[in-house]
């Protein structure tokens, strides 16, 4: 039971931080921390005041392989969870909407495609992952995303032709900075994770041969991440997402 006397609460918080509680008592404190702000403050007090005793130990050399392992593990987790679930739940949408208003043509195109996609998804819910041999032509309008993860309106256009040729067209001028590059990825199989379509050349426009794209379907995720100049060294996105969006089946007429 969590005590109510301040002194007892300080002792309990201190024992918790010292690691002296048995697992049941520690679990009880952890459960209480979510709703008991006073106890959380007392725990934070000990964590902060005792920290110098840890800091006084100095540092230990870390094996460079350690980060590679962590990165691999994170990539696997993101695949399992799906990349978009890592976003905070309450994403401010007004920024995206206002940016789109400044771009009326794109706004209309996005809205029309989004509506079409919504209808398509409603009619054909089992076609979200379409088979690789799909004959449909697709678009993906990628939304730009700033360093804080907020979307800033349409920033990139991906077009997939009938025969599988992929065209990448930036809608604004994007400089990755020296020693960095932009890398295009697509995800159609959560179990496999994002697959690289290649590092984009300066300017970002590129036309990829049909064999580069193994699969394409409605809702297929495309994203562009910031990577080292030679591209991600681990075959998975490592930098932040600059542009992200999903493929949507287009009308049969030419652009």
């Amino acid at each position, binding site marked *: 039971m969590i005590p109510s006397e301040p*002194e007892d609460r*300080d*002792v309990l918080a*201190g*024992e918790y*931080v*010292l*690691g*002296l509680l048995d*697992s049941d008592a520690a679990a009880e404190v952890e459960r209480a921390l979510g709703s008991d*702000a006073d106890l*959380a*403050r007392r725990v*934070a*007090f000990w*964590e*902060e*005041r*005792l*920290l*110098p*005793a*840890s*800091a*006084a*130990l*100095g*540092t*230990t*050399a*870390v*094996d460079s392989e*350690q*980060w590679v*392992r*962590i*990165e691999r*593990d*994170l990539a696997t*987790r993101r695949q399992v969870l799906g*990349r978009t679930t*890592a*976003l*905070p739940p309450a994403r401010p949408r007004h920024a995206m909407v206002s940016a789109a208003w400044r771009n009326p043509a794109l706004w209309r195109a996005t809205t029309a495609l989004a509506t079409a996609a919504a209808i398509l998804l409603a009619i054909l819910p089992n076609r979200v992952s379409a088979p690789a041999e799909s004959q449909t032509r697709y678009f993906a309008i990628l939304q730009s995303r700033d*360093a*804080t*993860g907020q979307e800033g309106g349409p920033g990139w256009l991906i077009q997939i032709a009938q025969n599988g040729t992929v065209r990448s067209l930036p809608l604004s001028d994007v400089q990755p900075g020296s020693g960095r590059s932009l890398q295009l990825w697509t995800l159609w199989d959560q179990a496999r994770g994002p697959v690289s379509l290649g590092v984009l050349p300066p300017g970002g426009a590129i036309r990829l041969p049909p064999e580069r794209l193994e699969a394409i379907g409605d809702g297929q995720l495309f994203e562009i991440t*910031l990577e080292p100049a030679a591209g991600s060294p681990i075959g998975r*996105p*490592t*930098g*932040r*997402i600059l542009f992200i969006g999903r493929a949507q089946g287009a009308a049969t007429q030419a652009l």
Partner: protein
Amino acid sequence: MEPFDHASALEGCARGDVAALRRLYDHEAGFLLAVALRIVRRRELAADVLHDAVIDIWERAGTFDRSRGVGRAWITSIVRHRALKHVRAAGRETDLDPAAGAEIADDAPDPFAALAASQDGVRLHGCLALLDPDRRRVILLAYVDGLSQSEIADRLGTPLGTVKAWVRRSLIALKDCLS
């Protein structure tokens, strides 16, 4: 040490920014590994603890609130809890056997002496100095070495009930001094 903005890095992690995690890792991995190693005493285990803790930090960063705590204390606490879970689950008796060769036994710095020399440790050092040496040791064996109360009782050759009473009184005295 140049100031590092732990809170901003954690907020970046909460947004799914791997680069923010990398910055935090580059800055703190060596320190966090030292914390873990002191508790689990084997490099291989300490590396596992650091790995799991970094994943924890990434996944729980959304619960970090800069208005309620200091980022460095928050991440250190995650590493300590991971390390403690490891040693409590494994049952550490064999690891503490001197013959089993705890890897850090010989060159482990005395945290009380190290505190006196560290810039931000002066206050904690001063408050710990007010405690009887045995009671001070109890606090540091628990916090720095991650020993349980019964392990501390064995180590000091003191009855468990006495250790528990020392912990309580020491915490009350420290709270008063550190507030």
